C-alpha cells in the first residue's frame, strides 16, 4: 500500500518566506501531487487537499483501531492493492461513509496542524502522486489553513503554559478512581513525551491530549515540564512501526523556526483567497 513510485521531484522550494505559502501556491495552481514538508506530506488533487500525513500524529488506521481491528484494517488495505483504500473499506462495509469522512477529515486536520511548513522551511513538490486512500472527501487549502490557525489560537488560549504542543507533560498523582481515559494519559505522560508523542501512543488527536491535559492540570493531576528545550523534529516516537507507509525522502535540513504568526497567516490566507 505504499504510494506508487515517485517521479522526479521538482526543484525544492526555498522561497517560502510565509507560513503555509507553498501549500496555497500549489492549491492556486490547481496542482496534483504531494507537497513534502519537514514534518509531513500534503496530497493535492487539482488543488484540493485530498489527504495529509504526519508521522508524528496518528493516521486513519490508528484512529480506527477501536472500531476496526488492526489486523482487519491491514488485511483490507492489502486487499485493496494500495489504492482507493477508502472505497474498498466502504464496499467491505467496515464502516459507514459518514464515519470514514469524519475520521479522515479529523486525521487530515490533525496532520495539517502538525505538518504545515513554517516560514523559510524547505518544501518539495512531487507532481502526479495520489494517496493510497483515494478520494474520500477533499478540503480546500485556504479553509484547512484557517482551521489550523483557529485551532492553534484556541488551544493556546486554553492551556496556561507556553508552547503547549511541544512541552512534555508529567503526572502529579495517579488517583485510583481516575477514569480509564485519564489513567491512560497519566500513565503515558513521563515528563519526556510531548503531546504529539502522547497522541501518537494513545492513537488520538493532539487536540484531544491537550484538552485532556487541561482538565487534568486543573485537577492538579498533571503539569507541564517547565524549562524543557523544545522537541526536535524527529522524536523517538513510542508509536507503532510505520513501515506500512514508507516515506519519500524528506528534506534533510530541519529548522526549529518559530511557530507561524497567527495574524500573518490570516493576512496571507485572505490575500490568497482574493486571488483564488
Amino acid at each position: 500500500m505504499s504510494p506508487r513510485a515517485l517521479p522526479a521531484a521538482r526543484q525544492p522550494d526555498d522561497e517560502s518566506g510565509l507560513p503555509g505559502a507553498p501549500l496555497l501556491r500549489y492549491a492556486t495552481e490547481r496542482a496534483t501531487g504531494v507537497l513534502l514538508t519537514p514534518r509531513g506530506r500534503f496530497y493535492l488533487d487539482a488543488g484540493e487537499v485530498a489527504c495529509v500525513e504526519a508521522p508524528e500524529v496518528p493516521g486513519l488506521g490508528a484512529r480506527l483501531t477501536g472500531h476496526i481491528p488492526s489486523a482487519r484494517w491491514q488485511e483490507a488495505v492489502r486487499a485493496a492493492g494500495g489504492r482507493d483504500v477508502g472505497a474498498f473499506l466502504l464496499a467491505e462495509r467496515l464502516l459507514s461513509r459518514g464515519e470514514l469522512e469524519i475520521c479522515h477529515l479529523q486525521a487530515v486536520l490533525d496532520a495539517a496542524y502538525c505538518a504545515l511548513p513554517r516560514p523559510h522551511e524547505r518544501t518539495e513538490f512531487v507532481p502526479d502522486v495520489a494517496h493510497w486512500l483515494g478520494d474520500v472527501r477533499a478540503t480546500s487549502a485556504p479553509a484547512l489553513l484557517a482551521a489550523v490557525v483557529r485551532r492553534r489560537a484556541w488551544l493556546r488560549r486554553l492551556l496556561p503554559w507556553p508552547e503547549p504542543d511541544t512541552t512534555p507533560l508529567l503526572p502529579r498523582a495517579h488517583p485510583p478512581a481516575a477514569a480509564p481515559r485519564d489513567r491512560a494519559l497519566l500513565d503515558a505522560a513521563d515528563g519526556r513525551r510531548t503531546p504529539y508523542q502522547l497522541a501518537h501512543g494513545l492513537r488520538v488527536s493532539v487536540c484531544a491530549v491537550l484538552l485532556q491535559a487541561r482538565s487534568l492540570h486543573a485537577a492538579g493531576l498533571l503539569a507541564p515540564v517547565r524549562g524543557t528545550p523544545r522537541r526536535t523534529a524527529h522524536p523517538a516516537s513510542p508509536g507503532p512501526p510505520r513501515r506500512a507507509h514508507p516515506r519519500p525522502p524528506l528534506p534533510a535540513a530541519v529548522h526549529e523556526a518559530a511557530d507561524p504568526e497567527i495574524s500573518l497567516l490570516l493576512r496571507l490566507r485572505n490575500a490568497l483567497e482574493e486571488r483564488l
Partner: protein
Amino acid sequence: MPGIDEILAEAMEVPGVLGAGLTDWTSGLSLGSAGRAPRGDHDAVAADTTEVAQAVAANTTFGDAAGGHPGTEDVIITAAGGYHLLRFVDTAFDSRTCLHLWLDREQANLAVARLRLRDLAAGLVAA
C-alpha cells in the same frame, strides 16, 4: 450508509429548515453545508458554531472540561426570527464535530427538529 452530503440533504427536509452544516468544533473547519446561511456565508457559520460549541464543551458546568466526550447533547438558541440547533456527534473514534440546523421560527417545530437532528447525527455514524 449515508455520508456527510446525504445527511445534510436529509437535514434539509426537516420542517422549517433554512440551512444545515457539519463542523469540526476544535477548528471551525466546515466538513459540509447545505441550504442557506445567515448572511450567506457557511464558513462564517462554521466559525461561529465553533465558538458556541467550544464555550459549552470546555465548560465544567455545561460540558466536560476535557472536551472529549461531553455528555452535552444539544445547544438550542432561540431568536426572534429563528432557531439554531447544535448537536454534538458521538463517534466510536476520537472526533469533535457538531451538526447545526438553522430553522425558520414560524415554520419549524423545535421539539420535532431536535429529535430529527438527533437521528441524523446517529445516522451519520451508523455502520
